[in-house]
Every structure is written in structure tokens, then in C-alpha cells.
């Protein structure tokens, strides 16, 4: 290790980051990168890798700890400061202006001029070409960014960083939006960069990619570093075990499920997103009355698209979905709710609540037109108040009164408001999408218990969660999504262990079609 000390271009020591909402995203993390290596930063969603990289790029500042770049202790107060230290970042969501050309995007903010005031387009294009050639990143400088494929957009982003003098490149899940061919191309380019002494930090959770191009890797879990390893000397199984694992095993009390009739029937759902990436590829499953079917998987493997299809937020290319025999795909949200479907949305601030409305108003948004809440043209305020007070009490929403604005509540209590509404409409099917993400332990436990209670009382529950703990403990049976396909079906979750799950989630293993087919409970 000693002889490598001088080779370290980035050192982050004892980094702790506590967000204003009290979440400790990083706890005493040590992270270092050698000059000229491709270093993978791995971990599940929420493991803290994005937070760590945001601090390295100056978007966030550490609560504790120090950052050392090329042996010099630095304080990175903004991206501009990070860029000045030779750090560039390619974000998952591109920072590009669609109507501008590639060259214009690349020189934005540092435009070459001619005659004192005009843009020197020729020079901008030359500059783009020069860098594109030097780094073997083929782009068309005069094409509009709106018209180029995603793979090229990413190259534009990389060029933007390089042209600003970055020697250390952070790539945040660069392959998430790429097709297989584009990924292969990107890897060739990254290796080329590495050969020219550039350093690359590669955030990913795709094992095959990591094994393919990285030299070393750091694994994070639950805001802590699980160690640094030479890629060549660690097996995929070991990585999987280090990455996917549970720190605390919550014990959820639940009786054996007694599933009966099929409520939600999904057959052969297909969806290709706007970047031509197949996000769902022939997904079929059933959810029965009285059971919780979990969907596990690393994020970005089709979970979000699946939920969007079921709640009319996107239309599938092919396939069917029905609730108790009635079609869901062509139904409006109003009709879907009429069929007894509830959704706890992943993005609760966008879909789940109206933030400057009161708690009461948020609790009745799906039922305010019901007869029991209306006296002729007027609301039956008594009934509405009774309903909201009851829900606040039943779901232990911590608030001053029902007329408090929802945005004044804590995250956990906001989610309780959403859950109170969605769970109390006597639903036939509950779709719970990341129902406990980012909320406190008390609220988490409460929501989990409610889900179990409802399913035991006969509701069909589809639980989508990137939290392995949650999905394994709560579900009666479980499917794993990988690359838009079902990779595994486990009828009984009690016999599962983390290691096995990890291998399916990360695509190391896949069950046979017969095994997976059992999730469709045909008569």
C-alpha cells in the first residue's frame, strides 16, 4: 500500500454526511482512487454512493471528514471548484440543452469568440472534433442534441468534462440508459481514456460490467464502506454478498397466507422507453386475494415502468392486465380506482399529496365524490371530519389537527397520510411502490404491519421495493425483476437467503421458464 500513496489522486477520509432531514447518508466512509485506474463504486440504491460522489463534485459538502486531491487538502464548495481541481462528472440525467448543437453544448460557458463578440462556430467545431478524436469519442459536432441517440449524448457529456480539463471522471450509472452495443462502445472508450492516464470512477451495480472493465472496486452498504478490493481477486458471489445483505433483520409477525382467487392478472407486458431501451420484456404474473407478492430487484430493472402501466401513467406496447377480469390498460385513473385499486406511489411528493392543502383535504382526494361525504351539492363536513379524524387516529399521523397543511409534516407522517388514504378505501388490490423509502423507523414499521393486516383480511397486495429487507420479510411469495424480465419466482419467501437473492438480482442466475411460470396461477 505504501508505494501507492503517491499514486492516489483522490482520497476521501472519514466522510460523514448528515442531511438536514436527519438522514445519515454516509458514515465515516474512506474512499480512495489511484491515478489511471477505473474504479467501481458499488452498492444498492440508498447505499450512499451518490451522496459520496456529490461531495466529490462539490454539489454537497461533507458534515465531517476531508477530501484530498493529488495530495492537497481541498474544500469543494461548488461544481466549479471541483472542475478547477480536475474533477468532472457525468450525471445520470444529462445536463444538455436539446435545441443546441453538440458543439454548442460542449463549449457552453466557455465559448470561443471571433471579432470580439460573435461565437466562433468553426473553432467550437474544431475544438469538439479535436477532443473527440483525441479521446476516440465519435460525435457529430453540428447535430442537434435533441436528434442524437442517448449513447452519443453521453459522449457529449464526457467531452464536456474533458474539455474543461477533467483528469478524474465520475460516471453515475452510465450504462443504465444504454443498449448493449452502446455499452460495449462506452467501455472501449473508457479503456482508451484510462490508457491516456485518466482516472475513472464508475458507479454501477451491474456485476458483469464491473468485472469487465474495472481495476478495483469499493462496495458500500447502508452508508458505510464494505471495503476496497482488486476486481480480479474477488468473485461475483462475494461482491453480491457484500453488496446485498441485511444489517438488521426486522421480524415481521405474520400468519401463513391463504391465497384464493386471482385479483391482478398481468400477461406478457412489453414496454420500450423513449430511448429505445426495452424496459419490460414479457412480464406475466398473478396476485391473489390474501397474499403479498413482492417484486424485488435493483432499481431500473423495470419496476417503475410496471407500476406506471398498471396505473395508466404509461401505455404498454403489448400485453394485458386486468383486475378481477376487468381491463386495466385502457382504463383512466378514475376507472382504475373504481375497480378497487389503490396505489402508494413511489414519488409521493408529486403524486401522493397536494402539499399546500390540509391533511383532511389530502385524505379525501379519492373519495370526496362519494355519497356519504355529500349532502346534495354541499359536502357533509361532519362525515368528512369524522373520516379524517378516524384516519389520523388509525394511522397515528402525528399532527396538530386535521387542518394542518401536509407540507408541515415530517416525511414519515406525510407517507402515513398517503397510506391512510390508499389503504382505507377498501381496496381489492394495493400496489405499494417503495412504501417506506426515506421515512423513519416508526412509520416504516407501522406501514409494514398495516400491509400485512390488510392482506390477511383478504386484500391482494403487490409490493415493489428496492429494500431487500422489506421485500423479503413482507412478501408471501416474490418475483425478482432483472433487465425487464422475471428472473426468479419464489413461492415461499421463508426459505430464501440473501446470497441467493443477490445472485438473481444482479443477473448471475436465472430460473427456468417453468419455475418462473408458476407465478401465473391458471385454473
Amino acid at each position, binding site marked *: 500500500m505504501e508505494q501507492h500513496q503517491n499514486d492516489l489522486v483522490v482520497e476521501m477520509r472519514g466522510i460523514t454526511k448528515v442531511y*438536514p432531514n436527519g438522514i445519515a447518508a454516509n458514515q465515516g466512509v474512506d474512499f480512495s482512487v489511484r491515478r489511471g485506474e477505473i474504479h467501481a463504486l458499488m452498492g444498492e440504491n440508498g447505499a450512499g454512493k451518490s451522496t459520496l460522489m456529490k461531495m466529490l463534485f462539490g454539489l454537497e459538502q461533507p458534515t465531517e471528514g476531508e477530501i484530498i486531491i493529488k495530495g492537497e487538502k481541498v474544500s469543494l464548495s461548488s461544481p466549479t471548484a471541483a472542475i478547477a481541481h480536475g474533477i468532472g462528472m457525468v450525471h445520470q440525467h444529462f445536463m444538455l440543452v436539446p435545441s443546441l448543437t453538440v458543439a454548442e453544448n460542449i463549449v457552453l460557458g466557455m465559448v470561443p469568440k471571433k471579432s470580439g463578440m460573435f461565437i466562433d462556430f468553426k473553432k467550437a467545431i474544431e475544438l469538439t472534433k479535436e477532443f473527440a478524436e483525441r479521446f476516440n469519442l465519435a460525435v457529430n459536432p453540428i447535430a442537434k442534441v435533441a436528434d442524437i441517440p442517448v449513447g452519443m449524448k453521453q459522449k457529449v457529456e464526457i467531452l464536456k468534462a474533458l474539455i474543461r480539463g477533467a483528469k478524474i471522471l465520475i460516471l453515475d450509472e452510465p450504462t443504465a440508459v444504454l443498449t448493449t452495443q452502446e455499452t460495449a462502445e462506452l467501455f472501449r472508450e473508457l479503456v482508451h481514456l484510462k490508457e491516456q492516464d485518466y482516472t475513472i470512477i464508475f458507479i454501477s451495480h451491474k456485476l458483469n460490467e464491473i468485472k469487465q472493465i474495472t481495476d478495483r472496486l469499493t462496495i458500500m452498504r447502508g452508508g458505510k464502506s464494505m471495503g476496497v478490493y482488486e476486481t480480479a481477486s474477488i468473485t461475483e458471489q462475494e461482491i453480491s454478498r457484500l453488496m446485498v445483505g441485511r444489517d438488521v433483520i426486522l421480524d415481521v409477525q405474520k400468519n401463513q397466507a391463504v391465497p384464493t382467487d386471482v385479483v391482478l392478472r398481468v400477461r406478457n407486458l412489453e414496454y420500450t422507453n423513449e430511448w429505445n431501451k426495452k424496459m419490460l420484456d414479457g412480464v406475466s404474473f398473478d396476485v391473489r386475494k390474501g397474499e403479498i407478492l413482492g417484486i424485488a430487484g435493483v432499481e431500473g430493472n423495470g419496476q417503475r415502468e410496471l407500476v406506471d402501466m398498471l396505473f395508466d401513467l404509461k401505455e404498454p406496447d403489448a400485453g394485458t392486465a386486468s383486475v378481477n377480469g376487468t381491463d386495466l390498460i385502457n382504463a383512466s385513473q378514475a376507472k382504475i380506482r373504481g375497480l378497487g385499486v389503490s396505489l402508494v406511489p413511489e414519488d409521493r411528493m408529486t*403524486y401522493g399529496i397536494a402539499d399546500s*392543502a390540509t391533511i383532511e383535504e389530502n385524505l379525501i382526494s379519492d373519495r370526496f365524490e362519494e355519497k356519504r361525504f355529500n349532502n346534495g351539492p354541499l359536502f357533509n363536513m361532519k362525515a368528512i371530519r369524522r373520516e379524517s379524524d378516524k384516519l389520523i387516529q388509525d394511522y397515528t399521523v402525528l399532527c396538530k389537527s386535521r387542518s394542518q397543511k401536509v407540507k408541515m409534516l415530517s416525511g414519515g407522517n406525510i407517507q402515513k397520510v398517503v397510506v391512510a388514504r390508499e389503504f382505507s378505501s377498501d381496496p381489492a388490490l394495493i400496489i405499494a411502490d417503495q412504501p417506506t423509502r426515506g421515512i423513519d423507523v416508526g412509520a416504516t414499521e407501522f406501514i409494514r404491519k398495516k400491509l400485512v393486516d390488510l392482506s390477511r383480511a383478504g386484500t391482494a397486495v403487490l409490493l415493489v421495493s428496492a429494500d431487500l429487507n422489506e421485500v423479503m420479510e413482507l412478501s408471501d411469495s416474490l418475483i425478482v425483476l432483472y433487465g425487464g424480465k422475471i428472473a426468479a419466482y419464489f413461492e415461499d419467501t421463508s426459505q430464501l437467503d440473501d446470497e441467493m437473492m443477490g445472485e438473481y438480482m444482479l443477473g448471475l442466475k436465472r430460473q427456468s421458464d417453468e419455475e418462473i411460470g408458476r407465478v401465473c396461477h391458471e385454473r
Partner: protein
Amino acid sequence: MKDRRMFGFELVRGAAAILLALGVGTIFIFLSSDEPLTALRYLLIGPLISIKGSVASFNTQGLYTILAAMIPTIFTGLAVCVMFSSNQFNLAGEGIVMAGGFVAALAGIYIHMNTGWHAVICVLIAAVLGGIIMLVPALLKVKLGASEMVTSLMLNYVCMYVVLHFLNYNFADRSKGSTQTYPFDPTAQIGSMVPGGSKLTWGFVIALVFVVIIALLMYRTRWGYAIRMIGINQAFSKYSGMKVGGTIVLSQVIGGVLSGIGGGIEVLGRYTTFLWKELPGYGWTGVTIAILAKNNPLLVPLAAFFIAYLDKGCQLMATYCDVPSEMIDIIQAAIFLFFAAEQFLSGYRQKIVVKNTRADLAKAAQAAEGGAE
């Protein structure tokens, strides 16, 4: 407790905005007047207190005049409240007031009835017309995504010229020197509530009734609820299963109906013939009132009173001093700017938020400790 502190802050902020605007007005008065103190006295207390020599007395007629001036602006203020609540920047109230006033006048002239229902019918016709006109920007927005702001602005001029055309070419009373219609039937006129020439008609009572109706609509019915939720978060409303497009149209049609009623009642109450030759400006005043009332219908009369008071004050200044009455527009603009400024005094608000958050965190920490034991 927390909410009360924020509410208090909002009050302080509103008061500060008004004081600041009056301050701006005062500066202009000092710049333009030879007798600024007298002018200021007329502006601030003149509308209700008349001073003769050293005797100050309450001016009842003055109060009536102010209340009378509130009639049309309460309606347009309510209209804007409803439309802005669904997050639609529709500004067509202005033109609809004129169109509504015109058809109400025509109904008063050419429909003959012997009962007091005549006026009601006239106003109803104005209301229906207002609703129909509003369908234009509303449907264009919902169906085609055309900016309701631009279409409604254009619509104001369309309303004005159509009215002027019919007034001049079809319905003008040629025996009069200026362009105006024949007088309405007495049955169509809205009677005065009080003695004197203040024009404080029963329309004022109707306006107050509508304040209650619209407040009930917005806060006590499913339609008003849907309008408000859509205004706050459209994605949430759609996800909850509400009919978003229909509700957005509804809110604007209600706005049109209210503006139409306002125009009808104003024309039938204040005049005996229709004689407007340009847009009356009540639509824009309605915007100011809605902003001051924070889109809350119950606060509309208060805001309308405030604006009518200032307006009257400015008129007195113009009459008795050398300050033009258009001063009101400068004060209004200043109030408007500061009142709508979210970050105005934000440093102070930030302190409250931080304080609240600290208190919450401390409580949470306590609870967590208790729970861990």
C-alpha cells in the same frame, strides 16, 4: 402553534406590503403636490371622515359610495379567485364585465316584464353570456393547450369592439348627444338601498350573498375542492381520479358567470342606459383583489373595500388638491408587487421555519430516545 406563528407572519407581511406601497404613494404625493399633507389627509381619512374647519364628522354618504364601488369588484374579485385557484391565469373578466353589462342593458330595454323578476332575468342573461364567452379560452387551453392568458387578453378586445359595434349600429339612441342606448325599463333597474345619490343598490347585498356562495362552493363542495386540488397539484388530482380537464373548464366558466353578473348588476344599478365606451377596468381590479385576498372568497369584500377606499381617497385628492386620481394605479401596482412577492421578508420567515424545525427535531429526538429505551 407552529401554524399560528406562520399565520402571524403572513399578517405582518401583508401589512408591511401595504405600508410600503402607501409609502411609495406618499413619496409621489410629496413630489407632485404643493400641499402634500392635505392631500395625504384626503387620501387616508377623507373617504370616511369629512373635516369642516376643526370639526371632523363621519361621512355616511362617503361610506355608501365606497360600498357601492365594491359591487362590481367583489364579483370580478371572486371570479379571479375561482380561476386562479385552478392555476389558470385567465384575464378575460374585464371584457366579460362589459359584454355582460351590455346584454343586461339590452334585456332591460327590450324585454318587458312587470315584476321585480325583470332585473333578475337581465342579470341571468349576462351570467349565461359570461359563462359562454369563458368557454373559448377554457376549451382552447384544455383541448389544444393554447395559453389561456393570451387568448383571454385578446378576448377582452373582442368583447369591447363587438359591444361597441352593436351599441353604435343597432341600439344607439340617436336622440342623445353621446352614444348610449335607450333607457332600461324601471323594472329592470336595481334599486338603491339607502337615500342619497350614492348608488349603493341591493346589488351590494347580492354581492355579499355571492361571497358566501362562492366561499361555500370553494370550501364546502366537491367541485370547489377539485378546483383547488387541481390548482395545487394537477398530477396528484389526476392520480386521485379527478376529472382534471372538465374541472379546469368549470372553474373558468364560473369565473365568466361571476364577471357577467358583476357587469349586469353594475350597469343596471349605477346607470339608466348603457353608455360604456371602453373597458371599465373592473376585471383588472379583480386581479388585485384576488391577490390581496389570497384567493380566499371570504376575504374578497375586505380587499374590495380596501381598494375602493383608496380609490375614493385618490379621487378626493384629485378633487380638492392637485394630485391626479390615477395615483391609485401606482399605489395598487406597488401593493400588488410586494404582496405577491414570496420572498418579501423571507429572511424573517426563514427564521420562523428554522425555529419550528429545531423544535420538531428536539421533540423527535426526545421521542426516539424514549422509544429506544
